């Protein structure tokens, strides 16, 4: 790789193309979502769409800068970035601006920076660096433990803001660990814990106990009835019951609005005016789009502010309403192709760092799309995280751009190895 060969040499054209389509589509949809006849120019800088245009330009600058620097720069400075993001996450807890109950923003001049968005990027770097170091293996408990610390330390700091959505994103790294050989039982245990947690929310504690008891019975019945098997089954039951009790206890400790959100999601409560309002309005907006949508700028639901946060977390509503089923599928497919393409490219990296980093990018993007679209179409609880490249917001767009283009750079440079 030589400078004189141009910064676009060997870059993956598909990724760049999808990136550009998503970013521009996002900008156009933000315009549609907050469209106001008094400020009808899409370049009006006093409006969100005008600002988003600046963010997009800024993102392109970041992309070019990333492509210009040497690929090893990010590998070598991974821990530095990680440390810096930890400092920022600590700083935001002290000097951060509080917006709707979350201390998530650092005000710098006219712009506000959201350290949590960059923490994802930095953590991905650090995790890739750590996992690719010699002697680190998912077969070793100490490595597993260290990986979890790298992943969840920033997550806990973000949880303190409290920004549950962004914190949850860090769970995406489990996918990376799994790809790198994390024992399946750890994943299954985590999965079982989530199922038990859901049961706890839906059912009274004693019924959950009965279900766990029946499960234990079944376990004993299927396996050889040795003392060891029976004893471990009973032990498993005790642990599960303890966890169930603990999660009930923790749920009670959640903020009331978070409890509400979970309750509405699992259908325990129907409250169309309160928490359910967002999701209900969002479903109405999407549903009213039909097959081909109402046409660009013709949406009534999003434009007239029926859907809250329509430019940020609920931006997909505008797609659903104005572009219909077909438009929604196009956007979803772009994300799917983007994620699968990143995974494919990651698998062909000879450099372990680049592979793991690539998986991290795919995992983060996937998790964002999963949680965001799942929320907007009413399949998942309302957890406020942005739709990558699409939602309004500079921090988010720049962080995702950084995340993606560092991988594109790695991929473009793989021949140099």
């Amino acid at each position, binding site marked *: 790789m030589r400078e004189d060969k141009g910064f676009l040499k060997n870059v993956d054209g598909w990724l760049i193309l999808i990136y550009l389509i998503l970013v521009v589509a996002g900008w156009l949809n933000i315009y549609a979502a907050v469209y106001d006849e008094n400020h009808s120019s899409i370049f009006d800088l006093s409006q969100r769409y005008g600002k988003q245009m600046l963010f997009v330009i800024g993102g392109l600058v970041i992309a070019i800068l990333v492509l210009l620097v040497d690929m090893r720069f990010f590998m070598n400075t991974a821990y530095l970035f990680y440390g810096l993001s930890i400092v920022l996450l600590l700083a935001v807890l002290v000097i951060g601006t509080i917006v709707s109950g979350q201390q998530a923003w650092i005000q710098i001049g006219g712009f506000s920076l959201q350290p949590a968005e960059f923490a994802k990027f930095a953590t991905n770097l650090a995790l890739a660096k750590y996992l690719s170091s010699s002697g680190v293996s998912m077969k070793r408990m100490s490595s597993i433990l260290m990986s979890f610390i790298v992943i969840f330390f920033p997550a806990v700091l973000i949880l303190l803001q409290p920004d549950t959505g962004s914190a949850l994103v860090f769970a995406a790294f489990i996918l990376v660990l799994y790809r790198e050989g994390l024992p399946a039982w750890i994943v299954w245990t985590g999965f079982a814990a989530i199922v038990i947690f859901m049961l706890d929310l839906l059912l009274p504690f004693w019924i959950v106990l009965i279900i766990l008891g029946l499960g234990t019975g079944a376990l004993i019945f299927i396996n050889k009835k040795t003392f060891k098997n029976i004893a471990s089954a009973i032990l498993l039951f005790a642990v599960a019951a303890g966890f169930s009790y603990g999660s009930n206890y923790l749920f009670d400790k959640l903020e009331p609005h978070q409890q509400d959100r979970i309750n509405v999601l699992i259908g325990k409560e129907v409250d169309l005016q309160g928490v359910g309002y967002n999701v209900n309005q969002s479903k109405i907006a999407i549903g*009213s789009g039909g097959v081909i949508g109402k046409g660009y700028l013709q949406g009534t639901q999003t434009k007239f502010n029926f859907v809250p946060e329509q430019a940020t977390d609920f931006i997909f509503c505008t797609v659903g309403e104005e572009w219909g089923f077909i438009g929604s599928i196009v956007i979803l497919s772009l994300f799917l192709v983007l994620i699968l393409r990143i995974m494919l490219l990651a698998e062909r990296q000879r450099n372990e760092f680049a592979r793991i980093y690539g998986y991290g990018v795919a995992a983060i993007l996937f998790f964002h799309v999963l949680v965001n679209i799942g929320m907007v179409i009413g399949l998942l609880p309302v957890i406020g995280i942005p739709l990558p490249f699409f939602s309004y917001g500079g921090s988010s767009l720049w962080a995702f751009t950084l995340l993606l283009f560092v991988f594109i750079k790695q991929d473009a440079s793989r021949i140099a190895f």
Partner: protein
Amino acid sequence: MRNQQAQRQSQITTMIVVVFLIFIARLFYLQIMDDTSTKGATDNALRNVTQYPARGLIYDRNGELLVYNEAVYDLMVIPGQVVEMDTLEFCTLIDISIDDFRKNLEKARRHSRFAPSIFERQLSKETYGQLQERLFKFRGFYVQPRTLRKYPRPIAAHVLGYIGEVNDEMIENDPYYKSGDYIGMSGLERFYEEFLRGQKGNKILLVDVHNREKGSFRNGLYDTASVPGMSMQSTLDIEVQELAELLMQGKRGSIVAIEPATGEILTFVSSPGYDPNLLVGRVRGANFHKLNTDPQKPLFNRASQAEYPPGSIFKIPQGLIAMQQGVVSEHTGFACDQSQVGCHPHPPAYNMRAAVKVSCNPYFVATFRRIIQQNKDRSVFIDARIGLEQWNKDIRSFGFGERLGIDLPDANVRRGLIPTVAFYDRWYGENTWGFSTFRSVSIGQGEVGIIPLQMANLAAIVANRGYYITPHLARTFEDTLVPTKDFVEKHHTTVDPKHFEPVVWGMYDAVYEPGGTARRAQVDGIVVCGKTGTVQNPHGRNHATFVAFAPMDEPKIAIAVFIENSGFGGTWAAPIASLVIEKYLTREIKRKELMQQMIETNFMHTAAH
């Protein structure tokens, strides 16, 4: 190791693809299968605002305004759009309690989450003004302009009727009406509902979630304009009506005056009445209850709903029918033989004219006996049946016992009672009754029920010498004559016009000759013909009645006055009638003292039982 990684790679890929497939399936369901959200979207962003037409105004026959409209504002709510808000500020603005707020909202929510309901009715202009500025803070609420009826003078309540909100049954019967609409409930408002109401329009507005109107939908392509109701000129003369109501204050009873040549009702009073403004707006419910439970029954329209025995005024048709049937002539005289019926001292009734003048009871008993018992059958009972049957035909041609086709709702008008053969058969059994059984009917007592409107119509028949035009209250709509042939057709009685002269002269004598019963009915410069009646009342003091018309030639007004429990007809009913006649024909009252005396007289607390 390689193997495990490849396996996990495909597991992860599969999981991601499955998630996207689930999303697509969900989107397919939301956007294509399920159309409830399309409906929700329409309810959300489009608001149908009903354009209520102004209800038609009502004028009197001289163009004086009787009923007009005043703008009020109904506060509407779409419960599905209401979000957390400053309830206290809201309640203070429209002056209701938090409790009422909750109740109203709950009620609206039960009606529909997405369709608008009336949250609070009829806010005043002032309240509306204050609220409007802050309405944007209260998502889901908006204001619907409406009109209320107002009455410049507190009169003619029974004629005009009132409007009220439609009930479920009305909505079911006529899809024009929607919950919260107003409809004429009684009187002219009800009878001419379809003329007065106009046609509702609809305006479709785009609204955003903050309840701000964003202009009309597709530039008003689907909007319909409302059509204002037709203005109506009624036949009432407001000044005469006002005086008549004044004269009747402190009395139970009625005054009905008709222009004989046209059947137009000039005055239509039921006393006690009420101020029609009481049954308007937010106070309506409380006032309605008060009026409805008042023992004097002010809501009851005595002029067309109260059936009274007519007393001596009934001698007019009795004499006319007898002459028509040829059982007496105008020269027939009868002695005042009080063996079967009482009478008062008077000069002998040597002919029909004199009999009418002095109102001799035995004279008309003898006359009616001749009508009923004409010896057409050997059996006195069968003979009476034949006589009664023929008499029924004749008396009913005067509009008695029949529903006069007045333009008031059926519920506000009674037919009255004229006894038939079947009636007495049912009462006494076949062939067990004869004339002597119902002798008192001769003089308008017993089994006869006449409403004051029919009494006035009787006066009109005599004034017209033999016919009437259905009395009515609507004159024109939008300057077009009421297009009902019922209101121009002459209904001839079975009595030949020539027989009316002796009766008319008898009525003249009653007013002007010494010994006449109605001398207090005289009006300077106008020749009034009248007939008094005193209705024996087994429950209390006698009722007084008086029918008259004036002037004698080319009559312009026919009138009936009925005053419950006031005693002799000549004392109260006759002078009150004469004052109304004077007012109508001369536009002023010269006899101020008499008027004052009449106004101040109170029979309200004399025995009503």
